[in-house]
């Protein structure tokens, strides 16, 4: 009986998290269109529903009902497999992310799907598998724009993965664990002062992570894989209908994932920025949901930053992009690892 309850609750948890995540993905698209609209001094979508709030629904219906074109010369199995790889890799990461205190109900952790000893590595691993979605889509499309886009993207992603991996080492050194809950627990003693970005002296690491994450998710200013002005649409030129929508969703899901990981690693996860200064109020339910609110608020700030950067910065040239990754970010990340490990060693 207990096992049955456990399995049912776990399945329910997975379903709820997936639905919320997909809704968040849809509304991130709307957020981006609205904000970019305001940055460019126009309104953005405003016709469907109040303030355009139903726009994601309309977009979804449109993409779903479009004709699913299958070009003649594509490598068929890989052409279908590529968007599936991209989307599933983007959706897996949310499974190890904790978004609230460890509150158990019938033995089930309510605010995390799976608590792993090596949670951080799982996220890095899933991200590194996600490259195949883009690489295969470009190759199987049998189109030179797609191939160029995916070659660029693959090279860009393996280059920036190094800086990304090195930037989190300082955080892991401070925690002494790869478990995401441990990483957050180290940071929630004195509010904002003990967050890794300030208290852990990882400000440079945060900057490296931020830059590398922008490159990993193929966002402006590193969106060369899909640079419209030179490659039509890059790796997804030949895709239409739902298969295109899967790439689209994967991109935004990856943005949210990166935001969640940045929040956990550098911004103190679900811990309140005020520490214990804010007196406890409300019942146990409020106390359980307040950390989730902080977590979502931090991720939202990160997404806002994403859109802000997109609306502001121009695109890099390709040689500048590679030079920046290898000649600036990588040495900086190595220096950061050395300085933080020396600091930790002297502190004791």
């Amino acid at each position, binding site marked *: 009986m207990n096992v049955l309850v456990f399995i049912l609750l776990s399945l329910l948890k997975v379903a709820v998290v997936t639905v919320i995540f997909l809704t968040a993905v849809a509304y991130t698209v709307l957020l981006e269109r609205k904000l970019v609209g305001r940055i460019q001094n126009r309104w953005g979508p405003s016709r469907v529903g109040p303030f355009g709030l139903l726009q994601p629904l309309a977009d979804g219906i449109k993409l779903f009902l479009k004709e699913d074109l299958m070009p003649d010369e594509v490598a068929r199995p890989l052409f279908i497999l590529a968007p599936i790889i991209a989307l599933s890799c983007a959706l897996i990461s949310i499974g190890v992310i904790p978004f609230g205190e460890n509150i158990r109900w019938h033995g089930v952790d309510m605010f995390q799907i799976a608590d792993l000893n090596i949670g951080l590595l799982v996220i890095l691993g899933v991200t*590194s598998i996600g*490259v195949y979605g883009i690489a295969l889509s*470009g*190759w199987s499309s049998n189109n030179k724009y797609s191939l160029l886009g995916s*070659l660029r993207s*693959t090279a860009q992603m*393996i280059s920036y993965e190094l800086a990304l991996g090195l930037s989190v080492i300082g955080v892991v050194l401070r925690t002494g664990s*790869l478990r995401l809950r441990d990483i957050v627990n180290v940071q929630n003693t004195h509010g904002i002062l003990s967050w890794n970005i300030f208290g852990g002296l990882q400000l440079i690491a945060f900057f490296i992570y931020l830059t590398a994450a922008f490159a990993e998710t193929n966002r402006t200013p590193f969106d060369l894989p899909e640079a419209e002005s030179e490659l039509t649409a890059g790796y997804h030129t030949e895709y239409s209908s739902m298969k295109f929508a899967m790439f689209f969703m994967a991109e935004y899901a990856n943005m949210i994932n990166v935001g969640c990981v940045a929040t956990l690693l550098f911004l103190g996860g679900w811990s309140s920025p005020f520490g214990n200064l804010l007196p406890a109020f409300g019942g146990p339910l409020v106390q359980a949901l307040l950390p989730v609110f902080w977590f979502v608020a931090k991720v939202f700030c990160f997404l806002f930053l994403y859109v802000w950067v997109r609306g502001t910065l121009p695109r890099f040239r390709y040689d500048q992009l590679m030079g920046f990754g290898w000649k600036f970010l990588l040495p900086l990340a190595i220096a950061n690892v050395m300085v933080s490990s020396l600091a930790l060693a002297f502190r004791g």
Partner: protein
Amino acid sequence: MHLALFIIFGLMCLGGAVNLLLQRHPINSALSLIVVMSSLAVLYLLLGAEFLALAQIIVYSGAIMVLFVFVIMLLNAGEEERTHGSRAAYLAGIPGVMALFAVLTSTFFTLRTSFGSARLGGFLVTTQDLSRVLFRNLLLPFEVTSILILVAILGAVVLAGKER
């Protein structure tokens, strides 16, 4: 549970390896090798090597194989053609490989009782255990491999760099 997972992922390993053998196009072979490597990661988890399982995914499936796929795409490698060289390999290879497999399998099979069996959670190496041995007892080999990597980077840059 352990048995079921072993059978599923063991068969995926074997299937991927056989598919690597049968496919004519290098990119299909590369993809089947990725399947083999990822299933091996699950087998490592079953054997209690959690850090290695993820290192397998990140290093092998996520870095080395991406490099392979990248080179295949870059050189636009087509389907391979069978030539006379492969017939000699068939003649010598099939009996040799069969003999190798028979020797190994019979050895392991006769020793199967002394090997015992693996239980889920019977032996778990955490990252801390692994790093304690790596950075205390084996620090010198670890540093030597870093020199190896440095030499490899230099070699790769020189070989693949622009011709002067």
